[in-house]
């Protein structure tokens, strides 16, 4: 019992981490795309929980709201509209499995090594309240994110929003061009 109470955070983190990874594995191994999407939903929710566990409540809530609530719904929408019940195993992909595994494994190893080296360089014990601190005062994660986003990184933030707007307009323009082309073809036949 004492062991449970003392290591509660670590145990919770381990459980959530295992579930996150299990969900991610499910996304790529499940045959049915809808099952993959549900698995991805599980991963998103677990990542949100991990954020909350690390005192980044704002990021956790936004993760849930944007990824689980918005983006994945659109994924499902597309899957259901085109009605893919089962994915055919792609033989071309399967034949390249071994080199792909080596490449991805190497990349993963490099990333883990990099994180370990960087965290060693950063020195022992980063401040656990760093994500909640505004000008030396511990407030909340929401305030801290807002402060950093709209004061320190205001210009990059605005630039990103413009880039996203451009991407959106571009997608609409391409979509419309195709639709109008199809209409012309139909008009030509009729």
């Amino acid at each position: 019992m004492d062991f449970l109470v003392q290591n509660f955070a670590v145990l919770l983190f381990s459980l959530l981490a295992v579930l996150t990874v299990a969900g991610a594995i499910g996304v790529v191994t499940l045959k049915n795309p809808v099952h993959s999407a549900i698995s991805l939903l599980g991963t998103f929710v677990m990542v949100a929980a991990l954020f909350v566990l690390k005192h980044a409540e704002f990021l956790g809530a936004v993760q849930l709201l944007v990824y689980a609530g918005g983006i994945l719904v659109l994924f499902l929408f597309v899957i259901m509209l085109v009605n893919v019940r089962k994915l055919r195993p792609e033989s071309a992909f399967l034949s390249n499995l071994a080199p792909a595994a080596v490449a991805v494994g190497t990349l993963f190893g490099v990333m883990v090594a990099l994180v370990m080296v960087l965290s060693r360089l950063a020195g022992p014990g980063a401040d656990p309240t760093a994500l909640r601190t505004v000008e030396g005062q511990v407030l909340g994660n929401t305030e801290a994110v807002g402060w950093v986003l709209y004061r320190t990184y205001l210009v990059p933030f605005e630039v990103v929003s413009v880039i996203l707007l451009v991407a959106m307009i571009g997608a609409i323009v391409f979509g419309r061009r195709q639709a109008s082309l199809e209409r012309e073809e139909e008009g030509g036949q009729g």
Partner: protein
Amino acid sequence: MHGPLYDLVLLPLIKIVVVLAAVLLIVAYLTFFERKLLSYMQVRIGPNRVGPRGWLQPIADGLKLFVKEDLVPGQAEKFVFLLAPVLIMAPALVMFSVIPFGPELWITDINIALLFILGVSSIGVYGVILGGWSSNSKFSLMGGLRSAAQMVSYEVPMGFAIVSVLLMARTLSLVGIVEAQKAAHLWYIVPGILAFGIYFICGVAETNRNPFDLPEAESELVAGFHTEYSGMKFAFFYLGEYTNMLVVSSLATIMFFGGWLRPFPNVAWLSFLDVIPPLVWFLAKVGFFIFVYIWFRGTFPRYRFDQLMAVGWKWLIPLSLVNLFVIGLGVLLLKG
């Protein structure tokens, strides 16, 4: 005095059980309330056979659904078919964990409560989509697709309306929002009347209620996404809808009508109103919004789907942006 076991496990557990039992009982009687109210609006009597004046009708309905055969269509996707009702019911109930019913009357008060509710409620849409898809019936699929488009569209103006409340209260905690209204000597309905209108319209759309009940439009889709469901699984969809109505009404009360506060909380000569406990004020306000929901159903014809999308995208979203701008400007000028 008490150990950590009491503080961390037992006390929250008791609170959760009490709130859960109360919510489920209220939801069960909401179905009765709706049937009665609709009958009176249509000059009928409504259910009056089970118990005195029909008061035991919800219990009888519950028992019937409980013992009914649980049918799973042969062509259905079994696992997803089972998961969908859970995905609708669980988020709806989870949201009550952050709703304050009165002073010190809440399960927990977190500093991201509004975001939490928005996030969790957006999970609820999966129940509808997946239920529609897994039934493997064209009516269900159409209902699920409609619902997905509708709920994603109306989440946007709803979010903007909520952000305008956030600007005024400067906190995401629901308890904090009520206390901010007490400190401001003002219910937020006064500056936020437009925000409230947008919020409530979106709330009705999010809960798939009339006049936005296209996902289950019976004249074209049989029963929409829950056509193939029966027994307790159907009951989950049904109860989930009412629980969500309760959440939307509670949030409207908390954000715009002062939560558990009495009207004009700072006018001294009205203090005789304090005889009525805060919890009753809260429930009365929530009850009023539930009544409005049912009133809508008894009054308005259903939208066409393109009209529904036009209202959402061409009216509510621009309107909510204008509202956000005006309220932001007001807050900036008044608070400096």
